[in-house]
Each structure stands twice: as structure tokens, then as C-alpha cells.
């Protein structure tokens, strides 16, 4: 279990994380979702005690990470960039990590096999591809078989096979009762992996919802309308709560009115319709919609 309370981090004048409060529960995969620069990596570093919060607290299994006697046993982490000495082999990297906590050597071989790095374990980590580096990071996260996994953008640089592998791994760990907290800037990825979402933008909490609720909430329909008299129809449909977006010449997209309402009004006015299509937005679009305010705030903030 990860508990974050009123967590704030400022770098000079810049507020990277702004009073975040949320809880990550065991037994499920929790996605930490937000556009680039939203403060995900910073939050994760604070949870692990790498960055000191400006204010607020973060605990893992009831205590600040650094106060556990065997921190690696409590939480394993894969951080965004490669956190490995480029001159050292994967094997010796893991061996040195394991030695700090008394994790037996046999477990090092075990995690190397688990992530599929057996062939290259004795090679310099600096020669690894991004995907191999991610696998090494996951191996070190799993070293002490921790209760909590914190993975920062783990699918970055992985090939499709690697992505499937990591999805399965995370779901397996969660099914085994572990707390899995994984960040991503891709809604589509999270929809496939996570059961719960913590959504952030500009360092602030935007949503803390189950994926099922999020999808339902996101299912706001729009209707694509095509007509030879599009301009007249556009004026006819305008009204409070209705937004229209021009798609191309003679076609626009309407939200806030159902397809039958649009069809009836067009018929009453004698305007011919060439197309009337109900559209459900993609999850990605729903996510963009959700975080749009946060992004807009950024633009305004920068101008001010």
C-alpha cells in the first residue's frame, strides 16, 4: 500500500507536484496517468525518498520508505531513465544491489532468467538497448520480491512482445496480492493494464477513479453531421450546452445533442442530411479532454 498525503514539490518557482493525495491499494494494478511533465516521475521519486518533498508525506506500507529495515523488500522500483552504471555487467549490478540487503545470490540468477536477460547478463549494461535496460530495471525491482512495485513508464522502448510480457507480469503480481503502481502518459496502455487510475495534470490530482468508471464517464457521444446546407444547419442547432466543431467542408461534429434530435430538427427545417453518425470518443480522446484544463492552465500560466 502506498499512501500519499498533500505531497508537494517545488523546484525553485516551478511547482512540479501540487498537494497530491491518493492511496494505491494492493491486489490491483493502479495506473498513474498524466501528460509529460505532469509530475509523475517526481512523485515516484518522492515516494522512494530520492527527492525530498517540499511538504506533505508519502509512505509505503505505513512508513516512509527510508525507515524500513529492508527497503528493497518493501518496494521495488523501475525509474524512468536507466539507473545503472554503464560499465558494469547486469549480473554484477544486480549482485551489488542484492548484497546491500542480504538477498541470496541464487535470487540474482532467478530474476535474470525471469526477465530474459540470461544471454547478456555478463555484458556491460552500457551496451544494452532501451528494452534490455528496462528489463534490467525490472529485474532489480523484483530482486527482494517486494510487496510494492513502482514502475515509471515501464513499456518505454519495449517491443510489442516486451509490452505484452510486462502487462502480464504486472497483472500477475497484482493478482498475487502485490501493490502495483505504474505510470504512463498513454491512456490506451493503462486501459489495457490497470484497474484503477490516478490521473494528474500540472502536478495536480485530476481524477482518482476505477478504469471502468473512467470509461463510462468518457463515453460522451458526439454526432458527425454532413449536409449540403451545413452552414444553415449549424446555426439551427446552436444553443446552450451544444458544441460544434467543423470537421471539413459540409461536415461538423456535434456534442450535447442526440442523433435523433439533430435529425428531427433538420427534417423540420427541410434540410437534407447526407450523414448522421454517432461517434464514441476513444479513451485517448477522453483522457485528452480530462487533462485539457490542466494543459490550458499551463499555457495561461506561462503567458502570465
Amino acid at each position, binding site marked *: 500500500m502506498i499512501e500519499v498525503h498533500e505531497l508537494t514539490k517545488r523546484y525553485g518557482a516551478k511547482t512540479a507536484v501540487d498537494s497530491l493525495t491518493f492511496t494505491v491499494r494492493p491486489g490491483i494494478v493502479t495506473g498513474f496517468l498524466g501528460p509529460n511533465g505532469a509530475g509523475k516521475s517526481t512523485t515516484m521519486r518522492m515516494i522512494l525518498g530520492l527527492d525530498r518533498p517540499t511538504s506533505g508525506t508519502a509512505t509505503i506500507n505505513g512508513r516512509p520508505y527510508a525507515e524500513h529495515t529492508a527497503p528493497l523488500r518493501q518496494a521495488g522500483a523501475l525509474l524512468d531513465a536507466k539507473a545503472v*552504471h554503464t560499465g558494469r555487467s547486469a549480473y554484477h549490478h544486480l549482485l551489488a544491489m542484492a548484497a*546491500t540487503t542480504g538477498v541470496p545470490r541464487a535470487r540474482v540468477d532467478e530474476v535474470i532468467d525471469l526477465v530474459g536477460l540470461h544471454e547478456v547478463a555478463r555484458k556491460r549494461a552500457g551496451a544494452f538497448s532501451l528494452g534490455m535496460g528496462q528489463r534490467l530495471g525490472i529485474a532489480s525491482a523484483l530482486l527482494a520480491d517486494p510487496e510494492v512495485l513502482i514502475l515509471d513508464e515501464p513499456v518505454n522502448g519495449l517491443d510489442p512482445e516486451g509490452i505484452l510480457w510486462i502487462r502480464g507480469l504486472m497483472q500477475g503480481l497484482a493478482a*498475487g496480492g502485490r501493490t502495483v503502481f505504474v505510470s504512463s502518459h498513454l491512456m490506451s496502455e493503462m486501459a489495457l493494464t490497470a484497474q484503477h487510475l490516478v490521473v494528474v495534470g500540472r502536478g495536480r490530482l485530476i481524477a482518482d477513479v476505477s478504469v471502468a468508471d473512467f470509461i463510462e464517464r468518457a463515453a460522451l457521444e458526439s454526432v458527425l453531421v454532413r449536409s449540403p446546407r451545413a452552414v444553415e444547419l449549424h446555426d439551427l442547432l446552436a444553443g446552450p450546452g451544444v458544441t460544434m466543431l467543423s470537421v471539413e467542408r459540409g461536415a461538423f461534429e456535434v456534442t450535447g445533442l442526440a442523433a435523433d434530435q439533430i435529425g428531427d430538427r433538420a427534417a423540420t427545417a427541410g434540410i437534407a442530411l447526407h450523414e448522421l453518425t454517432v461517434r464514441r470518443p476513444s479513451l485517448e480522446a477522453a483522457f485528452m479532454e480530462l487533462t485539457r484544463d490542466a494543459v490550458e492552465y499551463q499555457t495561461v500560466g506561462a503567458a502570465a
Partner: protein
Amino acid sequence: MSTVTRPIVSAAPPRLRVTQARVIHSEWIKFWSLRSTVITLAVAVTLMIGIGLLASSMSGSGAAPAGPGPNPGDLGPVDASLAGLTFAQLAFGTLGVLFMASEYSTGMIRSSLTAVPKRLPLLWGKIAVFAAVALVTGLAASAIAFTGGQALIGDGAASWTDPGVARAVIGSAVILAGSGVLGLALGALLRSTPAAISTLFGVMFLLSGVAQLLLPDSWGDRVVQYLPSDAGGAFTAVSVGDGLGPWAGLAVFLGYVVAVVGGAAWRLRRFDA
């Protein structure tokens, strides 16, 4: 996913916890698993022995006056055999910087501190491993340089039992290890290999000359004797010069090392990784 959720070992799980001894073991593994460290160490030892032997052979053939002690215009037999000290100091200092600062340049520090989030045990572990390795290899190098050098000098060679000789030879190893730890601490304080190396070189090898050049004669010598390079030199000198005595020199030299290690601990503890 049964492999993932399987307990760490089936029988008798080990007591998993971080201890200072385990962190030292981890740093030991880190030290020896980098080719660059091992090569730099070999270079340091080679410089200490090679330059010492070279200087000794020249001093031997030059028929230097016998007996330990300073000979104006020439090196005594002990100083000749330990002539590699300055260059070996550079190499050990660089090694110390690399051992710490490369954790920052590669991002390894974040892995290290995730394993040891209390942080200070990591610095102590690094210093312990480095000091032990540098003392042992430094002592071996200075002992070989001394014995080999005296054999080359032949007539007028010094012996271990001559006054000040044992201190000079063992002291060289202490100064080598101390310079290395100074480099390590500068690496932790500045978190950058080039910044730490140039600071170390500047302080150890340029400061004394610059001070002598810029300060008026009357008090230049008095200030210069307290600089780390000169204080360390006082400890390895066979006979006492007009500066600090050997033990005062050692105390001042180690004082600098302790002060910079203190700064390193403060930076490590207080700042974001």
C-alpha cells in the same frame, strides 16, 4: 506468472535487512566489477613503482652522497625511491573521484539510494572499501618502490631501520589513500567527475605553487605549510624540514580529508538524489 509470485527462496528465508557490513560488501562488488576502476588502480601502482625505480636508478648512477636526508640539488635515496608519490596521488585521487562521481553521471546513484535510502551508510561503505583497497595497494606499491629503489641505488642506499624511513614508506600509502578518499568526497560533494578532478588537482598540485608565487615571502611559507599538499609532504619527508613536523602534517592533511567528507555527507543527506 507463478515464477513471479513464488517466495524468494523456498526454505529458511534469509534475514533481509540493510546493514553497514552488507553495504560495504556491496561496494566491494561495485569496485571490482568496473574495468575502469581496476585499470586506474593498476596505473596508480605502476606510476608509484615505475617512477620510483627510474628516479632511483638515476640517483644511483649519479653517485649521490650517501645517507638518508635531504641533499640540496639532489634527492636522497628514500625520496628518490618514492618519487612516484605525486603522480600516484593523482591517479588514486582520480580513482576516488570516479568511484563516487560516476554514480551520478550514469544514474546509478538512484539505484544505490533505493537500496540504501538512509544514504549515509552508502558513503561510509564506499569510503571503507576505497580506503582499504588504497591502503593495501598503496603500501605494496611504496614498499616495492622503496626496496627496489634501494637495490638500484646500491652504495648509500637507505634501510628500513634508518630514522624516518618506515614513516615515509608507510606514510606514502596513507597519503595515497587519503588523496583517494579526498577525491571520493569531492565527487560526492560536487557530483561531477570533471569538476571534482579539477578541484582535486588544483588543490593538491597547483595551490601550493600559486600561493608561493603570490604571497610575500615573509608569510608565504607559513601559509603554504598548511596546504594539503605540503602538510601531506611533511608526513612523508624522511627528515623534518622547517615547515610542519610529520605528525602535525598528517593531522592537517587528515583534517582536510575529514572536512570534505563532512561536506559530502551533508550534501548526500540534505539534497535530492
